[in-house]
């Protein structure tokens, strides 16, 4: 059977090294399978996360040959196996051990977002075309790969001021819910710091769920922030409209 070399980061907050492991390669094998092989046969203490092995839970994120990926959806035969396959933890979050990182900050951000609030007296009817765009946002599996690549977090570490693409997606899902009545625009501008985003689209490129993060979530939200804060005429028109809704 063919073999490949996995070069895996082994270490913790105190530092670490890249270690090589030889693994057999079976047809259709994914990087997560290879990591499990290492865990099962060579390094039982290899720290990593996974649950579904089918791209549904967003647990297995890592950087494979420098690219942020779900390891359960990265086929070994899509990689150059003449070279070692490098697997590192996501860079934007502190390492716990090996490939497991401390993503707790994301859960803190999430807590700031006001939940769905149905408008007073709504009728619980919605058309498919009205929910389509929100359903796109709700596909998010919280893999945090978009958070990992966003330069505002990755290079500038603005975790205190910036919510990150994942949470713009979440807010978009709430704001565009046909029956929602809460206002999250001040939150977007202040606590989530949407202004820091300069629409580089790196987040959209890595999203395994193919959510159009920038075009469908961030840009429309930025427009709402502009309307609310910087365009008094539009703001009045909007008020009249929403009163008549």
């Amino acid at each position: 059977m063919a073999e490949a070399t996995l070069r895996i980061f082994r270490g913790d907050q105190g530092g670490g090294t890249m270690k090589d492991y030889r693994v057999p390669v079976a047809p259709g094998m994914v990087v997560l399978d290879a990591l499990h092989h290492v865990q099962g046969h060579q390094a039982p203490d290899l720290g990593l996360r996974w649950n579904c092995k089918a791209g549904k839970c967003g647990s297995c994120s890592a950087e494979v040959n420098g690219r942020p990926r779900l390891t359960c959806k990265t086929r070994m035969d899509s990689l150059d196996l003449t070279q070692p396959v490098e697997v590192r933890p996501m860079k934007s979050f502190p390492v716990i051990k090996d490939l497991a990182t401390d993503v707790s900050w994301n859960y803190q951000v999430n807590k700031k977002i006001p939940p769905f609030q149905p408008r007073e007296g709504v009728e619980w009817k919605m058309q498919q075309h009205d929910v389509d765009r929100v359903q796109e946002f709700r596909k998010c599996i919280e893999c945090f790969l978009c958070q990992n690549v966003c330069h505002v977090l990755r290079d500038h570490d603005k975790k205190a001021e910036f919510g990150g693409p994942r949470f713009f997606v979440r807010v978009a899902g709430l704001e565009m819910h046909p029956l929602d009545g809460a206002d999250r625009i001040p939150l977007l501008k202040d606590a989530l710091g949407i202004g820091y985003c300069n629409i580089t689209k790196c987040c959209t490129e890595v999203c395994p769920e193919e959510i159009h993060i920038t075009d469908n979530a961030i840009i429309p939200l930025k427009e709402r922030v502009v309307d609310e804060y910087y365009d008094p005429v539009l703001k009045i028109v909007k008020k009249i409209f929403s009163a008549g809704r």
Partner: protein
Amino acid sequence: MTDRFETHEHDVLIIGAGGAGLRAAIEAMAQGARVGVVCKSLLGKAHTVMAEGGIAAAMANVDTADDWRTHFRDTMRGGKFLNNWRMAQLHAQESPERVKELEHWGALFDRTQDGNILQRAFGGHTYKRLCHVGDRTGLEMIRTLQDRGVQMGFDVFMECTILRLLTVGGRIAGAFGYWRETGRFVVFKAKSVVMATGGIGKAWKVTSNSWEYTGDGEALAYEAGADLLDMEFVQFHPTGMIWPPGVAGILVTEAVRGEGGILTNKSGERFMQRYDSKRMELSTRDEVARAIYTEVKEGRGSEHGGAYLDISHKPADYVKKKLPSMYHQFKDLADVDITAGPMEVGPTCHYMMGGIRVDAETARSTLPGLYACGEAAAGLHGANRLGGNSLSDLLVFGRRAGLAAAEYAKGIAQPSVDTAQIEESERGMLAPFERAEGESPYAVHRDLQEAMQDLVGIFRVEEDLKKALVELQKLRARANRVKVEGSRMFNPGWHMARDLQHMLTVAQAVTISALARKESRGAHSRIDFPKNDDTWGKQNNLIRKERGEMVLRQESTRDLPDDLQQILAEEK
């Protein structure tokens, strides 16, 4: 002495953050209880997130003739009448309300033309009954519940594993566990505990289940003295992926068949005709799994030893819209375009119908202060679960468990915990580090999976089951001698050393129950007893720990009241 450990106090401690645990937490908080939720993975990653096809509730949005009676009858028929009929009744009556509640909390299901929740067909359901969001219904459900719970302010302890339940004088006093990240121990004092830990599928080799499904809840409850019920009923889902090898076992949702998918064998024959000509592909899971298994066994299997499942006769756009994650799963992992050609599928170990014995109204176990719901609990599904009935189960009985656990907690003072129990558990957990030599827990796990797959699979026979018991004994001896490398920090090998013990306990319970039930019923098929037996049809298998030993006994089921009997008699 408990000062040695980080300690938390709650009224109600919920073990598990899947649909069942989260719904229980929400209800217990609504009752004013202080609630803690513990889970092995990060919040939102429990099995519930993977559920695909939908949630069964007789809302009659698509087929207006549907009602709870029909849902009740379907559930009982699917479970071959071994179900706890009161649970089946409550479940059928309350699911629609629970689904609407999700919508009011922000869930967005697919819609009908007139703006209601859309419902699809599924095996064993008379009417179109499964509320869904494409094929990612579980994700929608867990996010909705998780956000609701977070907003209500529960304490969540993520990546924290419970090692044992603490009892004082035969009642619940809390639980003891460790942080996966640091390996440090932690004590939870609680007046009541809700067990919502899910299933046991990781004891089999080919499974749709994740690393979490090691039967912890069932084993911990058993160790603490609670009864387990009907452990022989393990569901093999007929359609798991079989090729390439790395993906073997990953689920192919029943929604493929619900949307019109057709099963054929290697000669292109639609073989379900021979097994269940009335319901065809939408027969119950036990029947379809046996049918595929038999086709393969008799030499009519597909290229890689399964069956072909084809949905490509539907328009490609429709398939991508209704089954998006299946489309991607096959394209990315198997190089198969399901809008253009067939998938290859075969049975995969999927769901545990048996589990902790509970009271229908309150989800109370036989151990005072311990409640159980979701896949960890038993009764609703009898001998075979219908697709979609799990997600509704989580909501209906999660809510009931949370309610009852909070009520119970109101009436009592905070119990003190027994330090001897804690110390014993700590010693057991640390032992594998102290051994100078021994094999890796992963090696023992692999052999356990092989043994269960070969000997306690879809078709069972006395000789194999007896062999399995001998194997399990040997495996237990090996598990007791494993050695763990590395430190206590985020060390999956160490965690496996413990999970292995739980798997061995549930594997033994499954095997002795399967050996005892000398008939075939639902998911339990005995080659040596291929027929239903009327006496067994009215008996549950109960498992309890007595003087350190696993003891099995039978108990008669309760007779149905006349009104429910009537419903079952109606032909539909």
